[in-house]
């Protein structure tokens, strides 16, 4: 059960990474932001995974990272 969840998450992350490489994306923060988005979407849709694994610390870590990336990008635009 959990193996399937992890494999699906891995497949999604790999597809997103390959897609970003394919379109020629070079910014590392874009890769990270997309991976974080996939994580939150996946764990929201597949709630069983969140039910079995305690993800609070990971949530906090990733949402903070995501916020910093967005803040940095907004700052870059406004500068």
């Amino acid at each position, binding site marked *: 059960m*959990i193996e399937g969840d*992890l494999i699906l*998450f*891995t497949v999604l*992350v790999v597809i*997103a*990474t390959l897609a*970003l*490489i394919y379109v020629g*994306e*070079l*910014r*590392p*923060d*874009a*890769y*990270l932001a*997309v*991976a*974080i988005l996939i*994580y939150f979407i996946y764990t929201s849709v597949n709630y069983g995974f969140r*039910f*079995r*694994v*305690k*993800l609070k*610390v*990971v949530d906090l*870590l*990733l949402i903070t990272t995501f916020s910093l990336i967005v803040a940095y990008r907004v700052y870059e635009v406004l500068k």
Partner: protein
Amino acid sequence: MYFKYLISGSLIIAVSAVAAIYSLITGLEVVLGASLTTLVLGIVVLTTGLTYGEPLTELYRTYVRDLSRLVSKVLEDSGLLGGSRFRVCLNDFKAVISTKPVSCLETSLGFGLVNDTPYLALPLDSIPRFEVVGSDLRGYLSEVLTRKFRVCRGVNVLGGEDGYTIELLGVGGDVLELIKTPPNYIKLLVLGMSAKFLGNDLELVSEDLISNNYVVKFRVVK
């Protein structure tokens, strides 16, 4: 804690770190991006290894503990705790605990008296039905206890005909707790399954817990 996810997660994080260092040295930003997504994956796998747990496990553990306390109290009050006879009866499929030998046919589920001998009969029909795998008792018990329930790492069966000794080798942590707590569900499970396989009533002769090995001796009642 699940070590396979713990190790997998650690390896993924290590690979991601190596890729990140490589990209910083060579200036390949694409590799840095890919290494960061791998890092997210590694963190998720590592967290799974550290915190994964089936949601109802804790609830069941509490339930079993409370139920065991109740059964222990009943056994204690009726003088059936320690030095009592333990028998598995195929009619009604039950385990009968009594101070003296009692006939299976005279007992019914629950607490009762037969010729002034108190007994407690516990139902065993909740033990799941399994198709008989293999032609011997060892194969059958191994299949269910080791592969399906993961109660122990291996099963040995000695003896035959009238008496058997069953050794459960490498019993795990939670299972040890079950063995130590009356009415000892593992004993009920082993004897219940053996009785079903052999098609006879069984009587417990002795039981021993030696380190991580649980040894049950019983005789066939014909």
